[in-house]
């Protein structure tokens, strides 16, 4: 079902409203865990991987998540299916191209998922709309406790949860928020923000994580360290930082409205003009036009737009989503045409 439904509404972590939704699109917590008695995924033989996947699946099926989730075996899935799961943040890039024996358990709400045989044996994640890190951590932590009552993790008293890459050892926790910061970019304060984030042991990346290109003023902020600090401390630090980022973006937006309201409205409506009339749109262009239009709405200079529609366009114009809607593979040119048509229809529909 999850692979058959490319509608925006099924993507719970983006389609539902969340706290500070003007700036924070989503909050995510991911835990890396390995099962004792098995080599790490990339080092395991085919037989060991098969046993690992079976051991993990048995454990996950005993959790409260099981009643409400779907197990998706990735080895027989098409490239579009894998990319679709990645666009919905249910699997990693690595998993989309990776090992043979892999599966993912995805909750119907798409707000919880467990990847099996990723870089680590288990990657548990909770992802919620808006700024909601504490609840996100609570959900992910609960799932972790349930799974750990079913199997034994690779754990040492000194180093904590042992992971394939030492950059995840200890808590194995990565918490992140996805933020839209157009006003900080326009007022040239973004580098200052990136520096401030780095000073707090956190890092800023592109919207698709490490090494990804920055498009449409979207950024991901996450913790860098995982060892020598508690989970609660990491969550609290990112939460505090998120509060400051939200406040700075608000302040920069107010400054722009006070000093250049007409310019802000002009940029937003020009972007809207292109989006609602273009016959071809690339993925990058779409995100870069949606950004000023979104800022127009959040700053109040554009009255009739809907944030939900913009979030929908950010997700549903991605390549795999378009191909799912079309029901057939599309090449780059065809995708640009389909994308433009989809955007026109959405923006012209009465909201």
């Amino acid at each position: 079902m999850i692979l058959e439904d490319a509608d925006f509404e099924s993507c719970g972590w983006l389609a539902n409203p969340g706290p500070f939704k003007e700036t924070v699109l989503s909050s995510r917590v991911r835990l890396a865990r390995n099962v004792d008695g098995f080599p790490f995924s990339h080092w395991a033989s085919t037989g060991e991987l098969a046993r690992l996947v079976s051991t993990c699946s048995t454990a996950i099926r005993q959790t409260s998540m099981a009643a409400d989730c779907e197990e998706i075996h990735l080895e027989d899935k098409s490239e579009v299916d894998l990319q679709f799961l990645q666009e919905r943040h249910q699997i990693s890039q690595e998993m989309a191209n990776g090992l043979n024996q892999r599966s993912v358990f995805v909750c119907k709400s798409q707000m919880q998922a467990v990847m099996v045989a990723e870089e680590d044996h288990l990657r548990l994640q909770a992802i919620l709309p808006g700024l909601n890190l504490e609840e996100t951590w609570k959900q992910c932590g609960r799932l972790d406790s349930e799974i750990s009552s079913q199997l034994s993790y690779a754990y040492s008293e000194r180093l904590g949860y042992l992971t394939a890459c030492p950059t995840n050892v200890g808590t194995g926790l990565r918490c992140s928020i996805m933020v839209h910061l157009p006003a900080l970019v326009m007022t040239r304060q973004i580098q200052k923000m990136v520096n401030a984030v780095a000073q707090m042991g956190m890092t800023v990346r592109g919207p698709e994580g490490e090494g990804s290109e920055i498009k449409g003023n979207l950024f991901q902020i996450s913790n860098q360290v995982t060892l020598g600090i508690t989970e609660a401390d990491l969550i609290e630090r990112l939460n505090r930082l998120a509060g400051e980022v939200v406040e700075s973006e608000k302040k920069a937006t107010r400054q722009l409205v006070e000093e250049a309201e007409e310019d802000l409205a002009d940029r937003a409506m020009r972007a809207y003009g292109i989006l609602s009339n273009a016959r071809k749109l690339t993925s990058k262009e779409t995100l870069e036009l949606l950004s000023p239009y979104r800022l127009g709405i959040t700053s109040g200079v554009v009255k009739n737009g809907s944030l939900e529609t913009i979030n929908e366009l950010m997700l549903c114009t991605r390549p795999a989503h378009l191909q799912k809607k079309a029901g057939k593979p599309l090449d780059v040119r065809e995708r640009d045409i389909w994308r433009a048509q989809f955007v026109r229809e959405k923006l012209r529909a009465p909201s």
Partner: protein
Amino acid sequence: MNGNKCQICQQQIAKIHITQIHKDQLVEIHVCPECARSNGLSGPGIKADLSLGDLVEGIKSGEAAAPVERGDEGKTCPVCGQTYRGFRESGRLGCRHCYDSFGEELVPLLRKVQMGLTHQGKNPPAAKTPKTSASDIQKMREDLRNAISEEDFKRAAQLRDEIRNLKKETSQ
């Protein structure tokens, strides 16, 4: 930016503009389509991350990134067979025991990338044995047969012991 030269070949017009954060700095790279393709910055399966990182280093300093400190590269984990060299190349350890096998080498790395050297967070409940079914033991027996036919006796001995232990536990 139209009209600017490609930062790699310095000849063609830069038509691709990529912004990334590299080492906490916003970096813009302007390249021509040809150089973008040959450096893996465009096309199917775009993998801008590492290549752009390398490129940024190259453009900024005119040379490759500084190598990380080296340990005893020939060291091998006796449990899984991963070598320290293999870890350095892939960034991944082979099994939980690699943390002991390469303990000395890992400390400077952990010191560099982590906040401390001791875990402060959550603990799992008291160690539990993974639930193993008869079919899992069957699969392990197949692995054992394969290991013997491939003359991988170290692996075969490991599997033999694992099967013995599991059988003991399931019969308890």
